[in-house]
C-alpha cells in the first residue's frame, strides 16, 4: 500500500498553475477532483466500446456488460453489501432518495423522521410525500447544542409517534458542519425504530460519509443508503442506492416508480408488466455507461487508498485548521467544538454585520480564489431550513444578523501546507476588514 500523500500525484487538475501558484481545492463536499484512472476509464468507454449494456451480445456490448458488473461489484465491496444486486445505479444521491420516497408503498398514518439539518435532498422528497398525502407527516429530530444527533430527542419523537414511524432518514455526515452520527448510535436507531415500528426502514444519506470513511451497511443494519460518485473521485451524473435485498425484492413494500425499457422481462397489451429482479427493475432506460464504468474505477481507487486512512487524514487537516483559526476571535466555526467530530468539513462565519465594504467588492471566498487559488464554498449549502431555524439564534447576536457562511472541505489530496496557506490568507483578509465592526464585543 503506497503512502496516502502519493495519491495526490494522480490528479492532473492539481498540477496546473494560475499566477504561478498551484490550486488549493477545498470544495470537496460539493465535488471532488478526478484521478487519471477515472479519466482513462471514461475515455476508454468512448474510444473503444461505446455501446449499450445488458441488452446486446456483441463484442462491444460484452465489454460494457463486463465493466458494469465490475463496477457494481466494486461498490458492493466498498460498502460491505451482501450482494451486488443490492447496488442500484442512479443519477445522484438526490435521485436515489427520491426513488425510494416515490417507490415505497406508503400507509396513510406513516411518519417520516429526519434530523433538523438535512440537505434539501433528504428533506424535500419526504416533505413532498406528506404534502401529496402519501404519508401523514414529516418530523425533524432536534440536534443537541453542538449540532450533533441527539438520541434522546429521537427516542422522544419515536414514543410520541407510537408505532407510526415508517421511515427514519438521516444524514450520516452533515454537509453543513461535518458532524457524523457514530456507528453505535445508528445501530441503536435501527434497533429502536424496528422494535417499536414493525415494517419501518432506516435510510442513511451517505453522500458525505461513504467518500470519506469506511461504511459497512451490514454492520450498521440499515435498509438503504445513498451517495454520489462525483463526491468520491468519480464522474458526474452517477449515484448509488443500496437497498437491503429483502426489501428490494418485496413487491409488497417497494415498487419502481420509473418504469419502461430495461426494467421489464415481458409485457402485453393487456395485463401488467413483468419486472426484472433488482437492481434492474429500478434502473429504467439506457444508463450512463461511461459514468458507471468510470465510477467503478473511482470505487477501486478509494478501496486501494483506504477509507480509514482517508478519514484519518481529513481529521488531521481539520484539527490543524481549527487550531490555526482559533487566532481569529471574530471567526465562528459551525458544528461540534471538537474538530475530530467534524470529519473533513470546516464551515465558518464572521461575527461581523458585513464581510465587505461594498456590494461590488469580492467576498472572502472570491479573495481566497483570486489571491491564492484557494477554492471554498459560500452560501447555505442546500440546508436553507437549518439557516431559517437559526435566525432567532442569530438575532440574539444582533437584530437581523444573518451570517454569510463559508465552507472549506478536504479530501485525500489536500495537505497541511495548504492549510497553512489558507490560514495565512485568512489573516490577511481579516486584517483588511478590521474597519468593519465586530459583534458582541469581540475584538476583531
Amino acid at each position, binding site marked *: 500500500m503506497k503512502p496516502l500523500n502519493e495519491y495526490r500525484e494522480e490528479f492532473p487538475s492539481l498540477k496546473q498553475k494560475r499566477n504561478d501558484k498551484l490550486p488549493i481545492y477545498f470544495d470537496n463536499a460539493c465535488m471532488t477532483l478526478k484521478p487519471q484512472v477515472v479519466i482513462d476509464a471514461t475515455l476508454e468507454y468512448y474510444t473503444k466500446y461505446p455501446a449499450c449494456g445488458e441488452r446486446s451480445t456483441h463484442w462491444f456490448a460484452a465489454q460494457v456488460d463486463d465493466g458494469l458488473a465490475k463496477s457494481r461489484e466494486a461498490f458492493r465491496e466498498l460498502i460491505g453489501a451482501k450482494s451486488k444486486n443490492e447496488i442500484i445505479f442512479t443519477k445522484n444521491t438526490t435521485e436515489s432518495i427520491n426513488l425510494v420516497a416515490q417507490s415505497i408503498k406508503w400507509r396513510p398514518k406513516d411518519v417520516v423522521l429526519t434530523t433538523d439539518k438535512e440537505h434539501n435532498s433528504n428533506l424535500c422528497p419526504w416533505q413532498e410525500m406528506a404534502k401529496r398525502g402519501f404519508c401523514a407527516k414529516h418530523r425533524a429530530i432536534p440536534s443537541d447544542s453542538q449540532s450533533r444527533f441527539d438520541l434522546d430527542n429521537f427516542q422522544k419523537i419515536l414514543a410520541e409517534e407510537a408505532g407510526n414511524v415508517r421511515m427514519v432518514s438521516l444524514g450520516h455526515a452533515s454537509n453543513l458542519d461535518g458532524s457524523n452520527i457514530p456507528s453505535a448510535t445508528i445501530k441503536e436507531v435501527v434497533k429502536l425504530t424496528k422494535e417499536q415500528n414493525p415494517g419501518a426502514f432506516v435510510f442513511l444519506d451517505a453522500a458525505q460519509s461513504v467518500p470519506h470513511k469506511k461504511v459497512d451497511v451490514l454492520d450498521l443494519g440499515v435498509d438503504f443508503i445513498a451517495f454520489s460518485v462525483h463526491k468520491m473521485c468519480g464522474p458526474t451524473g452517477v449515484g448509488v442506492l443500496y437497498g437491503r435485498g429483502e426489501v428490494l425484492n418485496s413487491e409488497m413494500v417497494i415498487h419502481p416508480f420509473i418504469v419502461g425499457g430495461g426494467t421489464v422481462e415481458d409485457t402485453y397489451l393487456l395485463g401488467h408488466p413483468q419486472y426484472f429482479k433488482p437492481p434492474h427493475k429500478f434502473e429504467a432506460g439506457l444508463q450512463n455507461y461511461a459514468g458507471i464504468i468510470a465510477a467503478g474505477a473511482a470505487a477501486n481507487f478509494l478501496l486501494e487508498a483506504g477509507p480509514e486512512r482517508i478519514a484519518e487524514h481529513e481529521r488531521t487537516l481539520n484539527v490543524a485548521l481549527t487550531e490555526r483559526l482559533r487566532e481569529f476571535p471574530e471567526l465562528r466555526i459551525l458544528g461540534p467544538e471538537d474538530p475530530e467530530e467534524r470529519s473533513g468539513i470546516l464551515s465558518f462565519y464572521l461575527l461581523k*454585520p*458585513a464581510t*465587505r*465594504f*461594498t*456590494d*461590488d*467588492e469580492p467576498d472572502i471566498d472570491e479573495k481566497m480564489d483570486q489571491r491564492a487559488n484557494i477554492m471554498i464554498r459560500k452560501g447555505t449549502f442546500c440546508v436553507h431550513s437549518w439557516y431559517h431555524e437559526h435566525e432567532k439564534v442569530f438575532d440574539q447576536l*444582533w*437584530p*437581523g*444578523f*444573518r451570517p*454569510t457562511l463559508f465552507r472549506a472541505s478536504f479530501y485525500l489530496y489536500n495537505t497541511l501546507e495548504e492549510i497553512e496557506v489558507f490560514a495565512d490568507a485568512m489573516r490577511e483578509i481579516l486584517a483588511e476588514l478590521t*474597519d*468593519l*465592526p465586530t*459583534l458582541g464585543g469581540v475584538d476583531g
Partner: protein
Amino acid sequence: MVEEPVVIAYFKKLFANPADTRMGRIDGAEVEIKGELCPRKGKKDQVFLYGKMTDGRLSALKFMCALCDPHMFVAADILCILAVGRDKDGVSGLGEKEFNELLGGESPEGYEHFQRARELLVLGMLGQKKIA
C-alpha cells in the same frame, strides 16, 4: 461602487453604540415589509422595516439588515431617523440634502441605497408586505 469613508465612519458608529441604534423589530407594527434591495452579483440581501403608525404618520420605525453591505445599514438607519413623524407623502419627499446632513457628508452610493429603502417604506405604508 467605491468604499466611502463617511459611510464607514457612520457604520462603525452604528455598531459602537448599541443603545442608540434603530435596528430591531417592533411588535405589533402596522408597517412591516421586507425587500431584496441590493441584488448585485447574485447576492440576496434582505432589508426589513417595522413601523408604528399614529394618525397616518409614522410614530416609530426600526429596521433589520441581513447580508447587506454597510451602505444599506447606514441608509436604513438614517431613514429611520428622518421618516418618524411623517406621513407617506412626507416620506416620499425625503431627499439627498436631508440624507447628507445626517450622514455628515456626501455619499452618492449611500443616497442610492437610501432611495431604495425609502421606496420600500412607502410601499410598506401602503400595506405591501414584501418586494423581491
